[in-house]
């Protein structure tokens, strides 16, 4: 850390901001001239407001996506890095290879897919525990509510990399707290890092610890917005606690929970940090789709193959989300 470093970084970042600003100013000018003077369109201002974000997103998401599709039809790897061949045949071979041959050293596609589904299904644990904690916190007249809430939210507030690395060291065989506790109560320690099943469970435990607070906070926000009158009316009619829960709380919470569970599914399916860090010994039996993709691309340098693999993963997630949206109507209020 020296003044030299500070100056270089400030100069570079300042320059970048300046260039981006000039670029966007130019875009705005073009839209303005084209829309206002040439087309005389009433929506010119809208275009000026919306297009910079759209252009930025397209450059950073759509352009790489198109490039990814191109790559899927190439044999780019470490040996063909500078001058890869592109052809339909290679592309087909890449896509077939995803299903027919191991995607890493030994693991094939379908076991990894099944594991990814198991991994993603933990979202329902996040949601159930989040809902349970929110209902406990929402009891009328609960003391210390804010303290409980502040503590329970901590895993979400912590930077994810820090908690992932901290959990990873706690899964150390001799010195991590889960094994120390097991030893104290007279049980054998667990090989959290070397044993395939325990390693996968360690990943899930860590991610459940991380995932509950988000659902809890969302559920609490939803619960607080349900009017007390419903419960009072049900109380008058002699409804039991369970009836109130299934007939008032759950239906009213659905519009809040359905989109959050959808976000949770997408985030968990795409979660990279937790599986990557907890799986310190790079066990292939703990890989989920996105970490396998990262390794196929950056450890085995199979860029063309990894691109085909990536497209299959995206298509899969996209169809799951569509089905979910159809099934729950999670996005009904979106375009209002």
């Amino acid at each position, binding site marked *: 850390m020296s003044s030299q470093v500070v100056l270089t970084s400030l100069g570079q970042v300042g320059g970048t901001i300046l260039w981006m600003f000039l670029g966007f100013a130019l875009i705005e000018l073009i839209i303005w001239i084209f829309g206002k003077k040439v087309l005389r369109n009433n929506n010119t201002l809208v275009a000026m407001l919306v297009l910079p*974000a759209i252009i930025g997103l397209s450059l950073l998401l759509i352009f790489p996506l198109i490039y990814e599709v191109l790559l899927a039809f190439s044999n780019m790897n470490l040996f063909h890095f500078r001058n890869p061949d592109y052809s339909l045949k290679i592309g087909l071979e890449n896509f077939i290879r995803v299903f027919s041959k191991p995607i890493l050293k030994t693991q094939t596609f379908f076991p990894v897919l099944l594991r990814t589904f198991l991994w993603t299904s933990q979202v329902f644990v996040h949601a159930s525990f989040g809902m349970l904690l929110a209902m406990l916190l929402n009891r009328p007249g609960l003391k210390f509510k804010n303290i409980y809430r502040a503590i329970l939210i901590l895993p979400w507030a*912590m930077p994810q990399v820090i908690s992932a690395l901290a959990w990873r060291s706690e899964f150390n065989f001799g010195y991590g707290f889960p094994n120390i506790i097991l030893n104290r109560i007279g049980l054998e320690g667990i090989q959290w890092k070397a044993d395939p099943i325990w390693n996968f469970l360690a990943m899930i435990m860590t991610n459940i610890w991380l995932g509950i607070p988000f659902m809890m906070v969302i559920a609490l926000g939803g619960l607080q917005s349900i009017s007390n009158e419903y419960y009072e009316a049900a109380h008058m009619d002699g409804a039991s606690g369970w009836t109130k829960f299934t007939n008032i709380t759950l239906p009213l919470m659905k519009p809040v929970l359905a989109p959050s569970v959808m976000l949770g599914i997408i985030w968990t399916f795409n979660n990279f940090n937790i599986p990557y860090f907890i799986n310190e010994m790079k066990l292939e039996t703990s890989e989920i789709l996105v970490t396998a993709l990262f390794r196929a691309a950056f450890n085995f340098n199979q860029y063309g193959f990894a691109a085909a693999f990536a497209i299959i993963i995206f298509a899969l997630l996209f169809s799951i989300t569509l089905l979910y949206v159809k099934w729950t109507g999670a996005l009904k209020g979106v375009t209002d």
Partner: protein
Amino acid sequence: MKKLGHQDPTWLKGLIHALLIAACLVTIYPILRIVTISLRPGDRLMSTSLAIIPPDATLANYKAALLDHDFLLWIWNSFVITIATAFIGLTLASTSAYAISRWKFPGRNSMLIFLLGTQMIPAAMLMVPLYMLAAKLGLINTYRGLVIAYSVSSVPFSIWILKGFYDSIPTTLEEAAMIDGASRMYTFIKIILPLTTPALAIAFLFNFMNSWNEFMLARIMLPKPGMFTWPLGLQSLQGQYTTLWGIYSASSIMLSIPVIILFLYSSKWLVSGLTAGSVKG
């Protein structure tokens, strides 16, 4: 709001507190362990003690992290990149969200769906093309590459949050200003933006946290140790050398505290932003 007459009986209250305390213990214990390890002297890192404050607690690890390691450099790298991206992202998001909230222009619905769709792209999927592009454009090991890449990554989510807030401001305000002869942009900047400061703060925070905590892209874009952002630095500390465990923990605590405070402080608004559109009547 809540009637006192509906208090729970004492046994139920006890049960609720017991459950909540148990949940809090499970939540906070792993975090307290980081504090414990950061306070241990270097020769006692390998210990099977479960005490939260070690008997021979010392701040040596904190001192070592600040003085002997590149901790400050990593923070600085992260900070420069993050601040720049958060401002760019916020500018792009606030203007687009305003347009989406106020005008029913053609293509508006497909744009909203497009924004949601971007959330579904696995980040790992973009890594190869982004790496290739960055390599071709000479952006590897520069701040530039990450600033550009991060700046739009949280725009979709920010637009969602901000749109919800703009929707809640009545249009009569702008109509009144326009009757007085103010232009559309003048109204937006002078009237609407100041009214949505809390929402802007949330979106800024969200942008900030996203880039501040990002690991994967930084990992492939910044291979040079001198350019490391803090997640890369922390990972390098944890590498094979278990002796650095204490320093790693001390750095983690120093990094987490400001972020946690910011987060707890803003979490109330964050939630109302997330649930704004969905809770109705």
